[in-house]
């Protein structure tokens, strides 16, 4: 998926002279996950450059650049390190248009690798997406395939509002069969790894049905889409798997249509459970589909603990846990 990300940045740097790309180690070196490799030598260090290690500063200058008229694409090295930059995101980027009566806007994209699966321990594995979705004025995107990653990143950069773009780092270097403990294989030759070189975009706010089914609706995003696929295959439950792709704005139409059909719903995410985005999903689904629901909506999520290092697979919600939920929701 990092190749797709790089291609999106490449395309946008080429198409739009206002696009600038920066962050810690993204310039000469090309990023710790190689998402910006080769871009500085292609576009020069006026367009692609290293920054000091200060996430608040990175997002702060991005807001200023956006106000000037550029389209900044900032990288936060790991989503776990976004917190020093939250004030600029929450208090500034998200509110600039509103508080200035559209005098000033913040058309920035803040990219960050999220999620576990690389033995990164508690500070290289977090999934803070729920925090962003609580902030009005931010859009939140989290792709699950290289094709989507490129198309959604291009749409995010073109969007005139601030977008938080989370990249499931477990998918950077290879596809994922839902079993995190299995070794990583490269994207090469994998059908989903095939990404067109040219410009294309995927609209924000539209979910994708990854697997049609009639028993139960599974709402997932990022790595969890693959876990859900594995769980459906392994349990034989005919799950309809919806990859949300954009968390905010949320594609409630697709969700409601599916739940009205299946009458059951399982929500899966890696983030801690309490007040995770699954809470919003569950609340919304029961609001909109209450009279179609045949059993309680279940959430399968990371535990309410920091992400451990050694027991990573006990934390990561794998096909076992999701499968158990599918079965249980069918029994209820």
């Amino acid at each position: 998926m990092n190749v797709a990300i790089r291609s999106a940045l490449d395309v946008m740097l080429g198409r739009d002279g206002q696009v600038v790309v920066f962050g810690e180690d993204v310039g000469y070196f090309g990023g710790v996950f190689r998402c910006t490799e080769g871009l500085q030598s292609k576009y020069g260090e006026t367009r692609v450059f290293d920054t000091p290690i200060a996430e608040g500063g990175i997002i702060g200058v991005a807001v200023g650049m956006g106000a000037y008229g550029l389209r900044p694409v900032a990288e936060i090295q790991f989503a776990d390190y976004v917190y020093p930059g939250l004030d600029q995101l929450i208090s500034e980027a998200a509110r600039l248009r509103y508080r200035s009566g559209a005098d000033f806007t913040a058309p920035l994209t803040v990219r960050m690798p999220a999620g576990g699966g690389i033995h990164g321990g508690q500070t290289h594995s977090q999934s803070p997406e729920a925090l962003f979705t609580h902030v009005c004025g931010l859009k939140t995107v989290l792709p699950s395939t290289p094709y989507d990653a490129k198309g959604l990143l291009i749409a995010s950069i073109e969007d005139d509002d601030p977008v938080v773009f989370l990249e499931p780092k477990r998918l950077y270097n290879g596809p994922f069969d839902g079993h995190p403990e299995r070794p990583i294989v490269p994207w090469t030759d994998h059908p989903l790894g095939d990404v067109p070189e040219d410009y294309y975009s995927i609209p924000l706010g539209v979910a994708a049905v990854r697997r049609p089914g009639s028993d139960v609706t599974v709402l997932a995003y990022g790595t969890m889409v693959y876990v859900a696929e594995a769980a459906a295959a392994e349990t034989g439950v005919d799950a309809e798997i919806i990859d949300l792709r954009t968390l905010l704005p949320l594609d409630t139409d697709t969700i409601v249509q599916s739940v009205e059909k299946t009458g059951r719903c399982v929500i899966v995410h890696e983030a801690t459970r309490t007040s995770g985005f699954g809470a919003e999903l569950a609340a919304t689904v029961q609001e909109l589909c209450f009279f179609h629901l045949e059993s309680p909506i279940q959430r399968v999520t990371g535990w309410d603990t920091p992400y451990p290092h050694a027991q990573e697979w006990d934390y990561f919600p794998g096909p076992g846990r999701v499968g158990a939920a599918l079965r249980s929701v069918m029994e209820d």
Partner: protein
Amino acid sequence: MDAGNDPDPPTHHGPLRFQVPEPSARPGDEPDFSYLDVPPAGDTRRPEVSVDPHQIRDLADAMIRVLDDDGNAVGPWAPGAELSADAMRRALRAMVITRAYDDRMFQSQRQGKTSFYMRSTGEEAIAVGHALELGPRDMFFPTYRQQGWLIAREWPLVDMMCQIFSNERDRLHGRQMPVMYSAKEAGFFTISGNLGTQFIQAVGWAMASAIAGDTCLAAGVVGEGTTAEADFHHALTFAATYQAPVILNVVNNQWAISSFQGIAGGASSTFAARAIGHGIPALRIDGNDYLAVVAGIRWAAERARRNHGPTLIEWVTYRAAAHSSSDDPSKYRPQDEWKAWPLGDPVERLATHLGQIGEWSPVRQNELDEEAKAIVRAAAKEAEGYGTLLDGHVADRRSLFEDVFKEMPAHLRRQRDELERLT
């Protein structure tokens, strides 16, 4: 475990002591500004704008002053003929109107016509100087105490007041607190309620201008209390690394609500000195001396435009009024501290200088004062005609949902409709 380290730290040092800085005077005490070293006007050298910052570290502890006690412009920083009498009168007028505006709006708050107000009394020269010295395409990233910029740029007073009254003509639709203006056309960035955030944004804007190969610079402002915030540090770091064309202003008005400048670290060094640590040139300037204000801004702007990078300026001034309409300074500082302030009143000092060079008189000053009041009174009358908080003529509530995003997403449309349905 300690493998034979020296035993407990030698106790002959005695116990440690927790030290909290204290202001020189509290309510009931005589005002005491002896902590402030005020050099004679004209005493501080003026380096070339291309100077190596390491060569002018001493300026961080000096104070650039141009106007002496009699109102003469003296020394190397005196702008001379480059600042015409007309330009000075224009600045004086802007300062006087700003003060009249502040007084009137403060009264309006007391009358319940608005919820909140913040005056800039005593600090008008700094915002006015920036407004008149920077170019029309430069961008100013202000705090809530730089209304002087808008007035100097002749932004309509009625517009400003409609925001103060949150009425139907409020350009910001009642969303913002009073005083938190936004005026892009006037080069005035939208004010944030969160302290300091604009400082690093100013640097980002300036970086963008350099990236675009443009010729515009940015100027950011924070109060001395706000220098403790992270974004102050971010601004200095990024400005130094990329040599951004930005003027970083610290308005040291001695107080941050109830905290004196020592709580922000002003007891152990000047705020200008913060720049030294980043290799940024630091100027420390008498902020109540309009000619010094102009000279400092010109120096920093010229330096930035010539690609020599950022400058940090500490403006030494005094917050004469309460922090805001919610504040009562007599609770934490001597009532009459402002009267003892050694750098005087920027309005009086500029008027005296103009008088000294034969371009002004007490009579004209009196006329100006009256005219300012009349202008403000007329504007207020018009603005109040569009409504105030008292009569509830506030902006349409539907506007609540606009501008959250460029296009309103479905969930906000639903929420707007829900509000509509409520009576």
